[in-house]
């Protein structure tokens, strides 16, 4: 498991309304190097509630996730709206947001980047591809990529892969 220097566990927030897809993502991570805790929320409103510590998550002491895996078509609040909210909220805007969706529509990709998405990934149909992609993507964002709120230096050397 990839941890921060402070030893705090690095969570992944998975926003996905399709249970099967959530399961698929979780299982893919399980088989790979990234075994961090995955917090799964089913709609856009819950995702915002979790990130902003409001509504259902008002009283629970949740720490901000290391990355957000965000689907686009979500009930209640649309994925793009969630993205926009994250990127315009000072407290949240530094969290990398990876769009993980079945949509490859140009309009969606353009809009996502317009709202400052950090990455846009189309869910591959092929299972093997899906697993390897999850591994690469997870490892890249959790390990290789340096987040602004962490100490400078070689992250890998200061972090333990469990």
């Amino acid at each position: 498991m990839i941890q921060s220097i402070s030893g705090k566990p690095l969570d992944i927030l998975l926003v996905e309304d399709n249970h099967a897809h959530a399961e698929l993502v979780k299982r893919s991570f399980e088989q790979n190097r990234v075994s961090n805790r995955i917090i799964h929320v089913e709609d856009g409103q819950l995702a915002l509630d979790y990130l902003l510590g409001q509504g259902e998550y008002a009283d629970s002491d949740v720490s901000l996730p290391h990355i957000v895996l965000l689907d686009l078509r979500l009930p209640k609040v649309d994925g793009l709206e969630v993205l926009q909210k994250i990127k315009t909220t000072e407290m949240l805007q530094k969290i990398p947001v990876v769009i993980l969706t079945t949509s490859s529509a140009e309009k969606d990709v353009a809009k996502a980047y317009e709202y400052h998405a950090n990455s846009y990934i189309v869910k591959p149909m092929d299972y093997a591809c899906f697993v390897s992609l999850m591994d690469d993507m997870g490892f890249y964002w959790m390990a290789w990529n340096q987040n602004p709120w962490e100490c400078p230096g070689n992250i890998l050397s200061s972090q333990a892969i469990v």
Partner: protein
Amino acid sequence: MKLSSNIRSLQWFLPVLLAILGLLIVIVYGLFEFLEGQHRLEQKTLTDIRSQMTRLQATLGDSLNRGDKYAAQREVAYQGVNPAINRLMLLDPQGMIILSMNYSDLGQQAKNISSNFEMPDQRIRLGFLLQKKNHLIQAYFPTQINTQSNSIRNHQNSWLYMAFNGTYQYEELLQDIKFKVLILAFGVILITLLTWWILKTMVVRPLIELGKATQKIGHEKQRVDFPDSWFNEISILAKSMGQMTDNLYKANDQLIQHTKKQEGLIQLLEDKNAELERFAYTVSHDLKSPLVTVKGFVGLLRQDIKDNNAVRVSGDLEQIAAAADKMAILLDDLLELSRIGRVVNKPEKILLSDLFAEVVITIQGQIKQADAIIKIQPDMPAIYADKHRMLEVAQNLLDNAIKFSQANIIPEVEVTATIDQNKVVCCVADNGIGIKVEYHNRVFGLFNRLDPSFEGTGIGLALVKRIIEVHNGSIRIESNGHGQGTRFYFTLAKTSERSL
């Protein structure tokens, strides 16, 4: 207004031209009259003098022939010839005065003049000479006098001189001409003024008003009144312009209506296009989603079989089956959606009360299970629509009303209808979980599900909207938010063959 612009106005130009021409004619006439009058005057004077001279000659001749110069003089004095005659003289051929008679002061003047007078040539055939000096007309008349008298023996070719004041006659002539010219000038001025007035009131004013009215056409929408005129041409112009304006307005109105209609159609087309785009997008996304699941779990299944993990294998299979089922339902829904508008049953008169009552029977099981109370207004108006589709609408709306109920509250659904301007507005109100205002525009979207914890593909309201729109109606939602219940209003035309 400046003069330069005034003179180019019809009401000024024509009268001024007329006045100038008229006055010119008057002047020419005056000149002609003056010359002609002068000539006439001369002729008359000549005749007068001649007759007078002849008479005088006869009178004088008698006395002179008797050699009585004084008698002649006396006679002349009593002659009282002509009041205009100032002096009368008898001159010998050398110009010496034989006899002289003064009638006024002017006579003295005549004498002075005559002393400088060059005697006219004897040979003058006219036998008469007129000279004018300072309005003094002097006439010399050759006179034959009897030479028997001693004293005036040598005077046979003497001259009778007469001087008289021409001023009186001359002035009379001038007065006459002046009077005539003044009358004429007055007439010209009168005609000019009359022309000016006629032009101003009957031509220029209507023309100016016509211009003003024409200017108005571009700015004002209402009918512009064109002025009438006494003159046919202007009257016809005004009338035809009025007609033209009316036609123009009519054409413009038609154009505006046409454009509006077209804009509406373009909007409709754009809406349809956007809908189609959304539809294609939704379909591709929503059909792809279960495919990802199926392929993913097939991969996981292989893994789990290899690992001999029986629990997971059955779980994987369930996911695959569920995804396949979902896909089948989605495809069915899509097919259903595409049928609306494509497959149209014959519209018939439907009583809304009967429609909802029929649906209540259909979903009896569901109602019982939810323990819901359904109230249907008994005397709802009739509509004219495809009954099969309207049943779907009613069922979907009632379904939703019961399905999205709040926990621990008995679901209550009320169906009412009112007539509003030839339209039937039907309301399906529930006391369910309600929908936040920000989600209102999403509820009718295809496969949009606000709450994933409830069953369904999210096609129900998309279907309802499509059916209502195919019937030229509209549907809207009202809800104040979570826990406030929801009201769906759909509007259709009142029973009429023409509504479809």
